[in-house]
């Protein structure tokens, strides 16, 4: 009996037919299908999104154009001229109120000077100037004596509701022996307030004691 030995290490017998056909190829095909599905889904999604965005954009533009029309109709119904008249009246009222509140008058200064100036003093130059720094008064005048001038200075000192930082300067005697002077003072804005004056018409502010009459005339 001839000995049976395997002449080759290659096994004899059924080869490929015995191996299941899907062993190695199956996962790859599944992967390919999945990849293909994902690509198709992504592409479809992008198309749907683009279409949706495009349509929504169209819708918004249409809505806005519709609303523009509605707005124009509403604006016409409001009668802009009437509204403008009302707005202008409101501006006029508000502005007038503010202007009256800040309205300044200077007659209180003359009232003060008429009442408080001693007979022995006369004013020759009057210069009132309301600058951004505040109202300022510069008056030049003559007094018959230094005592008369001191009396005038005292009335200004007492009138602290009207004046601040009052300074008498440039004192000198003229040919007739009169004392020439320059008075410089800051007028308190509250003293010039029209609103305050109107409010105090029934209850007048305390005015320095009357000593004489007007002396601005020569």
């Amino acid at each position, binding site marked *: 009996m001839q000995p049976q030995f395997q002449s080759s290490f290659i096994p004899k017998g059924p080869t490929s037919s015995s191996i299941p056909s899907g062993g190695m190829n199956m996962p790859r095909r599944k992967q*390919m299908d999945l*990849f*293909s599905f*994902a*690509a*198709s889904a*992504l592409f479809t*999604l*992008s*198309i749907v*999104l*683009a279409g949706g*965005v*495009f349509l*929504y*954009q169209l819708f*918004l533009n249409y*809505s*806005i154009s519709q*609303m*523009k029309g509605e*707005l124009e109709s*509403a604006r016409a*119904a*409001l*009668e802009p001229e*009437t509204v403008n*008249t*009302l707005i*202008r*009246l409101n*501006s*006029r*009222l*508000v*502005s*007038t109120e*503010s*202007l009256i509140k*800040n*309205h*300044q*008058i*200077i*007659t209180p200064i*003359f009232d003060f000077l008429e009442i408080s100036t001693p007979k022995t003093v*006369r*004013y*020759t*130059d*009057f*210069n*009132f*100037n*309301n600058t951004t720094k505040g109202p300022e008064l510069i008056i030049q005048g003559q007094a018959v004596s230094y005592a008369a001038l001191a009396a005038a200075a005292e009335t200004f000192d007492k009138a602290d509701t009207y004046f601040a930082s009052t300074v008498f300067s440039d004192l000198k005697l003229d040919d007739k022996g009169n004392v020439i002077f320059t008075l410089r003072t800051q007028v308190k804005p509250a003293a010039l307030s*029209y609103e305050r004056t109107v409010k105090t018409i029934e209850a007048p502010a305390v005015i320095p004691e009357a000593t004489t009459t*007007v002396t*601005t*005339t*020569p």
Partner: protein
Amino acid sequence: MKSSSNIALIVLAIGLFFSFTSPAYQEIKTLQASAGEYRSVIDNASHIAETRDALLVNYESIPKVEIDRLSKVLPDNIDAVRLALDLDTIAGRYGVAIKDLQVETKPNQNLTLAVLPDHSQSYQSATVTFSFVSNYSNFAKLLTDLEKSLRIMDVKSVIFKAAETGLYEHRVTVSTYWLK
């Protein structure tokens, strides 16, 4: 071949997103904001109409004479000729003649008076300088009338010098206003 088709689809999808969808979406956000504003304004229109009607009733209840007086307090323009006429009328009451009159309008930002809270600078101002000769008594009366005149005039400067004749030359500067 099939694999390359899939890649092409993905590339197309990404390309479409970045070239069209994303920019269009940004535009949509802007359009949405605009649409919201329009909607809000339209919703308010009815309220505005109601308010206007209520204000109109109030407006019509104000006598026309009062509205005319208010227009004199703060006119629509400086109207220098009318202003000169008003000053001359006031001065004429006391036998005073206005010698010269200069009107200088100020730039808006130079307003020194009140700044309104919600209507800042809704009026403009002009500086009016004029001179005249009168005695003290008439000057005081003229000044009083000027300060109380319907047209608001704030005295900014008064200069005069005593003379032996009793007639002084006065130079007065006032600020007056008109609605913008």
